[in-house]
């Protein structure tokens, strides 16, 4: 099922400059896996060596935190949007 992943500028650099990626997958984890395969540099910013989400990169399915749904196992539907929000600390 096609869905869109939105990346902040800082991560878009690791995805060939793309701010939006259209991917396929039945779960958030599958979608993340697909972009990780396409962009290895981005992969390590989205999931750890065991393929788990980081506690400092929050992913929202539409506008809801996937941690409060089912993490990477959260099912996705056609047209869903994933928003990647890494922790930043600048001020």
């Amino acid at each position, binding site marked *: 099922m096609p869905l869109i992943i*939105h990346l*902040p*500028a*800082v991560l878009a650099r690791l995805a060939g400059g793309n*701010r939006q990626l259209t991917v396929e997958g039945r779960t958030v984890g599958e979608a993340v896996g697909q972009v990780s395969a396409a962009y290895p*540099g981005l992969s390590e910013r989205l999931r750890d060596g065991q393929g788990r989400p*980081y*506690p*400092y*990169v*929050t992913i*929202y399915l539409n*506008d*809801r*935190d996937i*941690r*409060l749904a089912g993490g990477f196992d959260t099912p996705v539907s056609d047209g869903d949007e994933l*928003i990647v*929000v*890494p*922790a*930043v*600390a*600048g*001020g």
Partner: protein
Amino acid sequence: MNAQDAQDAPDAQDAHLTREELQRYSRHLLLPEFGEEGQRRLRGSSVLIVGAGGLGSPLALYLAAAGVGHIGLVDFDLVDASNLQRQVLYGTSDVGSRKLEAGSRRLRDLNPHVRITTHDTRLTSGNALEIFRGYDVVADGTDNFATRYLVNDACVLLGIPNAYGSIFRFDGQASVFAAPGGPCYRCVFPEPPPPGQVPSCAEGGVLGVLPGMVGVLQATEVIKLVTGIGEPLVGRLLLVDALTASFRTVLLRRDPSCPACGTRSLTELADYEQFCGTGERQPATGSREITPSELAVRIGRGEDLDVVDVRERHEWDIARIPGARLIPLGELPRRLEELDRSREIVVHCKSGARSARAVALLEESGFERVVNLAGGIARWSQEVDSTMPRY
């Protein structure tokens, strides 16, 4: 602490506005949702701004202009020329001055009705609760993860809402944490990234107007919290993308397992440098540091050193250490064969963080003679070559 009170500041929330205040705040008074009641609430409020930098500047200026009765500022730094691109609280003549002296001077000129309290110190676990106590709202304008977790936890422990803002390069975030019933920073980011993974603005850069955009959002939230108008950003995280001019809001929920606001197992402030891994740096096994002065002496003696600069090319174009060669950190893993394992390698970046990652990478790859340049080229420009451009 250096408390400086403006004269004739009426701080009783219920006293009528003076003739002068009526004139100054007339555009607020004309707002039906705001009115004199809202202005009196602002006048009766105490707001603490942590960090008088990119975010703290617009926060302080707009909150002073709006008529917040008491503003506290926490910072320990001096004004640097590189601050002026975004820290609009300061002018060129302030370079070298203490930020809080220059900042409070500017704020008193902007609005003499505002009482300014300066906390010219580094915020720590030892002083945060004492400094925060008594303020109605805290605005987090700090520039590192350790202080952000400290600000969050102190706000949760004391029950003070935290008007949060954070920026990096072209992206910004804003929310209100630790409000009654709402989530806190730890609910969103339970743990910080490992040190070095997310560069600071000093290393990675920031668009100068971005802290203006985000700091003004924070100031707006402070005003809403204090006056009770509108819907504060509680339970929502506002994402600002300066490049695409887009604003997006995602929903936040209090995490029942959050040690700060959920289980409340966190009952006192912790060691945040240790939590963020940014405390006393533990060099990887066998790795060493060298100071710029020591390196200059060794280069002068003609010793055989391979000085590797792991910054980006646009930084290399600004300034470089003579004899160094450029291998940006991102390219290092695939360019290891360009390095001679038998030679001593000195790695440097702008201030030492990226090069520490490079040292770790090289050591993991079996290099045994790797040294990190402490303080990077920034410290070199202070210790060795004062003519070198700084950025």
